[in-house]
Structure formats: structure tokens, C-alpha cells
């Protein structure tokens, strides 16, 4: 497409990018308020009432529990055995992650704070934690609620510090085990009388994945120096309380030198905070975050100019996430015709957009989030610290594509347990098509739709390439 987007296309494109897919209600609202005012509303999510979602979430009790309460209520199997308790299936720790997956889907589908939820999803992936690694089963709920959400539209530095001090990340990337080998604490601590030592895992990923990037110009020496700074950033009783503490007994009190900056001896917990400040304000971090956000909101290979401007905004505003988003979404590149339908929806986006487009009622059964998993995005269960890639080619293996097609068929045929699409919605194929891709349906798709009525037509379009894109 070479001509500029028409008004209808512009609204669909805008909602495709800043939400989990257009609905008739939101299309109408953008039309009434205008794109700019609607965006401002989305950037102040606390002011948007979210009653339908809150009712849906009310039954998920783990959402409100602390790490300690979760460990007590859903005890680890070894504790159950040790204390001779009767294992209750409803108290299996797995229930925690199941509720979190349900909540993530419900929020993606029903929240009115859509841009906020997009950003929560983005940062959850950026600061990935694999929730099935040991104690992370009990720590992940708080990670979502207390670490990511409070800062998803705030300052990057605050978010980075929150993740660095989160028990979930400390456990996932092993920093909780890291100790200066010469410290008094390292000599006794640790199971099986093994002397504890320095663990580089977090230090490396902090630079490579969370901030300055693999091209950020750091050396192995910097990895070690940063690991030394973070010694003592650990967890008080990961399997019982799961709280962040700074343990000075295992901290390395010597002088460090990080990326050319001297960190004097005796800094204690301040050493790690200095590293956070240094990395958060590093120009390479501005560039990496700007690029990754531009990839999310504009195109797999975003134009250099828009990345440059977003990176400049990041630097000028000390990493203010709202400002960087505004710079991206307000850009001419954002609405450029070549970026219309340029992104492939990842599984969560695809599933949520489908349910939104047909206004489905769902309580999110196992079948639904397992569908998302089979499409390649098991929620909170990405194993590598990189999280999931955000490029088209990652999401279209044969089994993934087949799963998308079968999901569309099951949803529209009302075969998905716990989810329901009304007969009126299914009758009205035109109403569904308005939300898909104005001007973007291929001749073959148009022909197939013309031949069919209601649900059959909707199932085909939902399974077609056009609906896989946003």
C-alpha cells in the first residue's frame, strides 16, 4: 500500500498497535475523542474505571497474596512431606501460575487500560522470569503485581531497580547465591558446606538483555565488577518468606570499576544502586530500549530515524517511558502505510484480539491458556532470559499456525469450554470484518467470505493471514 491510511484504517491501525485489538466500543471512542486525546487517556490508566475486569478477577485469590502467604497456602511438596500434611490437589503450587495466566488473559481481553497492559506484557518479556524455576513459582505473582505493574509507564530506572531487588529475578538469575568468596558469610553459608562464590549470571544479563545490549561495549571484567557490586543482594528464606534483603556479610567491600567508573570501597548496598543508575542513564540503554519499543509498536525492522528520536527522548527525560511512547506513537512512521499490518500478532495478542473482536464472554479455562502455550507463548513460562523474540518469523511454525486455525474454529463454533460468543455476533460477519483490516483483505479471503455466512465466514477470516497481523 503506498497511499496514506484513510481515517478508518488509521483508527484500526492505532488500536491494533496500542491495544490487544480493536472492539466496536473502542473504535467508536477513538472516533469521538480523536487519536491524540485517546492516547492521553491511555497514558493515564489510573483514571480509567475498569469494572468489568475487576469483576472477572475477583475470584482469583492468589492475586492478592504476598510471597509468604502463597508459600504457606500452597506449600512446596517437600514441606508437605516433611510435616506429614495431606497433599491437597487444590493447594498444589501450580494453582498460583494458573491463576496468574488466567489473570493475564483476562486483563488483555477486558481491561480498558489497554496500553498499560501492553506495556506490562512488554516489560514482563523484557525482564523475563521463568516461573517454573524452583522458588519462582511462589515469587512470580508479586513480581507481576509489585515489580512490573507499578513502573510499567513510569521511569525506566525505577523499573530496573525494582527488578534488581525482586526476589523473583534474584532467584531466576541466581544473584541470591552470589557471594564474595572472601567475605565472612561465604565461609559457612550454603548447603553441603560448599563455599559460596561469585555468580555472574545476573550481572551479564543485566547488561546484555536489560540495559546496554550485547553491543554495549562491556568486557568480561565489567561482568565480574558488576557481579561484585551486587553481592549481598539476596533473598531472605526463598522457600519461606521470599523477601529482598541486603546481606552485608557476603558483600564484596572492595573498590570496583564498572564501565570506566570507579565505585569506591565500602559502599555496601549503594554499589548496586550506583550500577543501576549508571546503566539506566547509559546512552546505549536509551538506544536499546528505544529500538525494542519501536519494534513492538512500529515494525520488526523500524526506521532508524524514529528510533533515534525515541532514544533522544529517553535521554532527555531520564528514561520516562510515557514520553518515549508518545514520541513513537506520535511519529509519522507510526502511521506510514508500509507499517499497516506490518507486525505479526504474537499468540497472546492473537488470542486476545480474537476474543475482543467477537466480544466473547470468557472465564479463561485451561484450554484457552493452553492454546496460547501451544501457539508458542506459554505465559510466564519462557525459559531463557531473553524472553520471546518479537519478530514475525518466530510465530508461524506449522504446528503454531495450525493451532491458530483450530483455535479460531473452536472459538467461533463455541467449542471452547468457558468461553461463549453470542448468536447475534456470529450472525453479523460485516460487523466482524470492520474490525479486521479495512482495505487489507486479499481477493481470496474476500471471495471465501462472500461465499459463506456468519460463523463460517468469521472462522475463516480469523484463521486467514490478515487476522494474524496487526
Amino acid at each position, binding site marked *: 500500500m503506498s497511499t496514506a491510511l484513510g481515517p478508518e484504517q488509521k483508527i484500526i491501525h492505532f488500536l491494533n498497535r496500542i491495544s490487544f485489538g480493536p472492539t466496536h466500543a473502542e473504535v467508536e471512542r477513538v472516533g469521538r475523542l480523536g487519536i491524540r486525546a485517546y492516547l492521553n487517556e491511555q497514558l493515564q490508566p489510573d483514571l480509567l474505571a475498569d469494572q468489568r475486569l475487576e469483576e472477572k478477577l475477583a475470584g482469583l485469590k492468589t492475586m492478592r497474596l504476598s510471597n509468604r502467604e502463597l508459600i504457606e497456602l500452597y506449600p512446596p511438596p517437600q514441606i508437605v512431606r516433611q510435616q506429614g500434611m495431606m497433599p491437597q490437589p487444590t493447594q498444589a503450587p501450580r494453582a498460583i501460575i494458573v491463576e496468574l495466566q488466567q489473570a493475564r488473559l483476562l486483563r488483555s481481553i477486558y481491561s480498558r487500560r489497554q496500553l498499560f497492559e501492553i506495556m506490562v506484557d512488554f516489560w514482563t518479556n523484557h525482564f523475563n522470569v521463568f516461573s*517454573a524455576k524452583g522458588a519462582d513459582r511462589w515469587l512470580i505473582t508479586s513480581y507481576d503485581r509489585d515489580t512490573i505493574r507499578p513502573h510499567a509507564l513510569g521511569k525506566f530506572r525505577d523499573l530496573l531497580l525494582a527488578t534488581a531487588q525482586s526476589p523473583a529475578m534474584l532467584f531466576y538469575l541466581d544473584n541470591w547465591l552470589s557471594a564474595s568468596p572472601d567475605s565472612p558469610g561465604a565461609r559457612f553459608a550454603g548447603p553441603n558446606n*560448599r563455599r559460596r562464590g561469585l555468580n555472574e549470571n545476573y550481572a551479564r544479563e543485566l547488561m546484555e538483555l536489560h540495559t546496554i545490549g550485547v553491543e554495549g561495549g562491556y568486557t568480561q571484567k565489567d561482568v565480574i565488577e558488576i557481579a561484585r557490586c551486587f553481592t549481598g543482594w539476596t533473598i531472605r528464606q526463598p522457600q519461606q518468606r521470599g523477601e529482598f534483603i541486603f546481606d552485608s556479610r557476603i558483600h564484596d567491600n572492595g573498590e570496583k570499576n564498572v564501565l570506566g567508573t570507579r565505585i569506591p570501597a565500602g559502599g555496601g548496598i549503594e554499589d548496586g544502586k550506583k550500577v543501576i543508575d549508571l546503566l539506566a542513564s547509559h546512552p546505549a540503554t536509551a538506544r536499546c530500549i528505544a529500538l525494542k519499543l519501536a519494534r513492538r509498536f512500529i515494525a520488526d525492522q523500524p526506521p532508524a530515524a524514529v528510533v533515534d528520536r525515541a532514544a533522544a527522548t529517553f535521554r532527555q527525560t531520564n528514561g520516562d517511558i510515557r514520553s518515549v511512547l508518545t514520541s513513537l506513537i506520535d511519529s509519522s512512521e507510526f502511521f506510514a502505510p508500509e507499517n499497516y499490518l506490518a507486525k505479526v500478532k504474537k499468540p497472546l495478542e492473537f488470542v486476545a484480539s480474537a476474543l475482543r473482536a467477537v466480544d466473547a464472554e470468557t472465564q479463561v479455562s485451561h484450554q484457552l491458556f493452553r492454546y496460547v502455550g501451544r501457539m*508458542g507463548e506459554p505465559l510466564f513460562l519462557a525459559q531463557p532470559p531473553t524472553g520471546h523474540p518479537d519478530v514475525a518469523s518466530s510465530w508461524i511454525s*506449522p504446528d503454531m499456525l495450525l493451532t491458530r486455525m*483450530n483455535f479460531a474454529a473452536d472459538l467461533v463454533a463455541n467449542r471452547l469450554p468457558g468461553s461463549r460468543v453470542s448468536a447475534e455476533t456470529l450472525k453479523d460477519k460485516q460487523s466482524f470484518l470492520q474490525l479486521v483490516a479495512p482495505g487489507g483483505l486479499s481477493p*481470496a479471503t474476500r471471495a471465501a467470505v462472500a461465499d459463506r455466512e456468519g460463523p463460517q465466514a468469521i472462522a475463516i477470516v480469523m484463521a486467514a493471514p490478515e487476522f494474524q497481523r496487526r
Partner: protein
Amino acid sequence: MNTSRRNFLKSSSLGFLALGLPPSFLVRAAGAQQIFSGKTLVVVFQRGAIDGLNVVIPFKDPAYYRLRPSIAVKEPAAGEERALDLDGFYGLHPALGSLKSIYDQGQLAFVHASGSPDSSRSHFDAQDYMEIGTPGIKSTADGWLNRCLLDGKKTHAPFRGVAMTAQLPRILAGVAPALTLSSIEEFRLRNEAMAALQKIYAESSDALFRAGGQNLFSAIAELRRMESKIPASVERYPVGRFGAGLSQLARLIKANVGLEIAFTEIGGWDTHANQGAATGQLANRLRELGEGLAAFYRDLGDRIDDVVLLTLSEFGRTARENGNRGTDHGHANVMFALGGKIRGGKVYGRWPGLAPEVLYEGRDLDLTTDFRTVCSEVVTRHLGQKDLAKIFPNFKNGAPLGLLA
């Protein structure tokens, strides 16, 4: 362990003929398909770290019985619940009795004190390292089984690389296309309008989805085309996902669909407490493993000559039993190698011993064979791969063990 992503769909027990297939599939001429008679590598990942010391038991090492007062398996002798003698030094766990005759026929071998040289005792890291094939280096993007498919062959066989898992495992993830198949029966479109969708994808101006659709619909078509020739299994496999996966792999191999790299997995090995000895928790898991592998072996018949099956597990378990009559995360382990061309009937690998002074970090079986040495031999000798450095970069391979005839 991540169980949630692994106990997905149970495979259907329906046979093909029960599914009301169009008669055309049944009458299709048999000669239409190109016969594939290439080699297949099957990797079985034992997730959770299997206790190799109680699988292939060093009953002649006196330290074994000292270290494991309540969980040791008794040395071979007449009677039940004793290890089955393999070579006068090692014995097989009695729950693996179904494999003993295959070992005796020389088509099953073990490699003891093998595994990943990385010292990690994290399931997550150690599995990852074993799957990407670069222990200690996390940044490797793809899995080593996927790299086995990157040999520039211009084949579009949709079944070249198949994982019988819900999600594509790390070991098979990468640039080369690979299929995940929860079950042959379920690999079908439930959208009534398959023909219309196929046309939409084929005619799409969207190159990515045109190619993706081509892969998908050719795999579906190939499977349907083969369907009448994929024999329903007559072997009795153990109930559960592991048996069902192996059963389907055997069917794909026998149907000559071009399967070169296959992957499946079996969990439940993380026996920190009450693991049992000749019977009990571990024995029950071993029975499922052994009966599954034995059924797979029988099922393949002559085709076993074209197949090598290897097992991997992220690490072994502590040499000493713990305070809960279980074992904790350890280091070296035992690998299985099964196949028609395997020089079996032998336990390979140098035995490092279990005396306190030779234990790895004072607690675990030491490692004498890198898992990549075993895999390299199979990859080169069995699959005929030339460029080993691409599959296991930065790996200085030792002398091959001579596993393959």
C-alpha cells in the same frame, strides 16, 4: 521442573480408520510416494535428572552400598528385586528388565559417568546447556538437533525434524523448520473450510504466511497421504504421553515420511525423597521408560537398523542418599544408546569410582565422557554429518567410543 507445559494433551487412542477418512485416502496408489530409507536419530530427554547410579548399578564398587544404605539395589543373584547382571561389574535396575534381552542381543549399550561438563545443578540451566549443545555458553541461539538439519539439503520433507511435544523444545528450535506434533491424529484442521484456507494462504500476497501455509498444508497433506500407509501400532506401549509419543515416532519411521531427527521426553526423575530401591518411585518411572523403549524396538522390526536412540538427562544425582531416602542434584549420569547398528551388550565409559576422594566436588559421580562425544559419534557415523564444529561449536572432541559398528 516445568510440568505445566509438559502435561498437555493426551494423545487420542483412536485409530485412523475410526476417523471417517475419505475413501480416497484408502485407495490411493501405493507407488505414488518416494521411498525414504535414510537414517533417524531419536533423542529422549529424561527431564528432572535421572539417578543414573540406580539405573546402571556399579554393584562391584563397594562404595556404592556404603553411600546408599536404604536405596541401593542389591547385587545380581537368584531371586527377585536384584540388579540384572550386565558384565560382572554393572547391573541393570530390575524395573528395566524389558531391556535386558535387547542388551544381550547387542543392540543396546550404556555410557556411564557421562553428561555435561558444566557444574550447574540447576535443572533449568543444565537442560538449556544440553539442548543448545554449548555447556557454559548461554547465548547460543539454536538447539543442536536443529543444527543437524542445517546441512543445505534441498528437501522439503515436512517430517525431517519432529518433536513429539506440545511446544518446540529448545534442542530443536532454530532456523531449520521443525514440526511439533502432539499427536498424528490431532494434526488436522478442525476448521471446516480447509480448502478455502489453503487457497487463501496459497494466493496471499503476504510472503511469510504464504510460506508458512505451504509448510503447514504440505505437512497435513503429506500426513493424510501417508495415512493409509502409516500402520496402526500393534505393539503394546505403556499408557501415557511417553509411550504414545514413541508409538507415533515408530509409525512415522515405518511409513518412510523422511524423519531424520526426532525428539521426545519423559519426566518424573527429580527424586529428592523416598525414591525407593528395587521397587518404589524410581522403579515405577523406569518401568515406563524401559517398556516404552522395548516396545519401540520391537515395533520397528528391521527398521531398527536405520535408527539410533540416545537418552539425555541434565545431570545425575548425588552419590550419597540424602536424609529423605532420596538423592539431590549431582553431576555425571548414564546415557542409553539403542539401535540396530549400536555395538551393544556393553557399558562404555571409564568408571571414575565412588570413593570419597574421587567424587566430583566431594559428592557426585565424576564425569569421564562428555555427552557431546557420544552425540558427535552418532551424528557423524549414523547421520553422516560432516561439519561437527557447526553442531557442537568450540568442542574439542575426544576419541570416539566406538559405539557404532
